[in-house]
């Protein structure tokens, strides 16, 4: 029992190079910066957050969050613009890794504040941002590829693995839960696997009238089947990654289960699914924020290799000798 418990403790305290988490910080930071920039550029800040007399639409307040800054600062235009501006700056500094933890804190508390108020406008993408900012706040995400490492001596050659693993688990929870509640008949043979056909026929969500989908109905059926089972079984991916760890004893079954790296299949299908959603449906930044979390499934050494490859190509391009004419 003690050994098993100790192994469990050791598992959560394993360490790794910080590059994968740094890439995750950069992609997620860019995604949340883009999210607030979109609200500012489209003139939605006051409509969604301010009191009616300051340009808002809805008068009621939904103060579910104990940390909603609106409870203390009010819902004036100045406060709404200030918070949006601060989140824009904090999202940028999070991406750059400057005062990383403090930036993550600001992004988290403002995202919670906005989410609390925007009940009439919010969609699941907003909640992905909110939940992921909490995990980012817990993570030592500025340990490399950051201005903190470059300027402030905050770099580190290794960091704990558990923050990246929490992101992996969170992504699996989002997908698998979404898949589990797809119980309606259109997600099965009971109604001809027509869920995606129905989805691209939804005015307000589908980008175009869905007449075209009838002509490629078998493809939409296939997409329905794949997306449902991709989501339901996504929890297998972190399980697969756990089994592929070297420290586990090598039994025959485990050897078999960990032979295949399921990341390639799941992440490529996920990329295709989100590209499809982004092209066919207007659901804001949902696909972008989901894809921004995918680096949590990359190993640090893979990220380092990719970085080295890109750096070498860029270096070669910069120092390409001129072709004599």
């Amino acid at each position, binding site marked *: 029992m003690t050994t098993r418990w100790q192994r469990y*403790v050791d*598992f*959560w*305290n*394993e*360490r790794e*190079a910080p590059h994968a988490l740094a890439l995750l910080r950069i992609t997620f930071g860019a995604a949340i910066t883009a999210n607030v920039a979109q609200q500012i550029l489209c003139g*939605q800040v006051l409509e969604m957050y301010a009191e*009616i007399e300051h340009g808002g*639409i*809805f*008068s*009621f307040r939904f103060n*579910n*969050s*104990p940390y909603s800054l609106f409870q203390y600062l009010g819902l004036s235009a100045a406060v709404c613009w200030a918070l949006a501006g601060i989140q824009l700056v904090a999202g940028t500094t999070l991406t750059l890794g400057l005062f990383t933890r403090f930036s993550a804190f600001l992004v988290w508390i403002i995202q*919670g504040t906005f989410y609390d108020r925007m009940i009439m*406008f919010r969609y*699941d993408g907003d*909640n992905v941002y*909110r*939940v992921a900012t*909490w995990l980012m706040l817990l993570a030592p995400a500025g340990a490399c590829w950051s201005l903190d490492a470059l300027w402030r001596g905050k770099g580190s*050659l*290794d960091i*704990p693995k*558990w923050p990246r693993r929490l992101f992996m688990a969170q992504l699996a*929870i*989002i997908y698998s*839960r*979404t898949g*589990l*509640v*797809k*119980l*309606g*008949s*259109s*997600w099965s043979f*009971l*109604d001809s696997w027509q*869920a995606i*056909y129905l*989805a691209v*026929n*939804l*005015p*307000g*969500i589908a980008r*175009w*009238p869905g*007449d075209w*989908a*009838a002509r490629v109905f078998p493809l939409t059926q296939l997409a329905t089947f794949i997306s449902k089972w991709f989501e339901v079984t996504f929890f297998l991916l972190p399980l697969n990654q756990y089994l592929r760890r070297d420290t586990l004893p090598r039994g025959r079954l485990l050897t078999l289960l960990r032979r295949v790296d399921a990341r390639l299949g799941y992440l490529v299908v996920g990329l295709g699914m989100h590209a499809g959603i982004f092209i066919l449906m*207007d659901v*804001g930044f949902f696909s972008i924020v989901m894809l921004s979390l995918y680096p949590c499934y990359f190993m640090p*050494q893979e990220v*380092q*290799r990719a970085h*080295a490859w890109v750096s070498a190509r860029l270096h070669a391009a910069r120092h390409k000798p001129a072709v004599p004419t």
Partner: protein
Amino acid sequence: MQETATLPAPTTNGTANNPAALPAWRQKLVAVLVTFHLFATLLYVAPYPPYMDDRAMGHPEVKREMELLFKPMYLVIPYGKDWTELKDTVLGLVRQYTATYFKVRKLVEWYMDAASIQQAWNMFGGTPPHFPRVFMVEIKPLGATEFLPYRDFHWGGKDESEYDFRHRKTHEILGLGGWDRQREDYANYWARLWNREHPGLRVHQVRIYYWQLTTPPPEKARAGDMDRHPQRVNEFNWTVPADLQ
């Protein structure tokens, strides 16, 4: 690549680069807290039906789903005198599960609230609607006898492209239920917009409603029958406050 070569192999207890490796008690604390976070999140996201009230059960989408699910189920499990009795029994069990679930969930709600990470992922959960709705706004200016069309969120129209997904989320919420107080606020919003765009022609009343469409089955659509049988539903008439008139 050089950077890779200099990296020490990951170890359980830190590296030379990290001389202040966590003491044993902190390592245990990490394991306990991470486990609690995962337990709390998993418990919080356990599936439950979003709506079980009479209004939800009377919705055409829900009624259709119940029939599609329980009719074939009754063939396999012939419990009760017909499929509706089987349905009522199962829904009763679901209601019991839901009540128990929310009691148990209280164990972790304090953490999910404190961390601001309440979550329930439902993207196209249940089923995407067979009967989607299109949001419409009409305005009756002061002194006019008729309502004038103001906003039309049908596909491909100017209004549909001008307003983004967040407004359409509002339409969805108000179309599925929502409160009259919210509808009044939204009607006043359109009234303010109208007044801004039409100086000298102030709003007296706002009417919001939906065209409920029926997505044609693919075989009908392929045969060229794209009739979506629009039905006007959820009409809400609102006389705007005096300060907007």
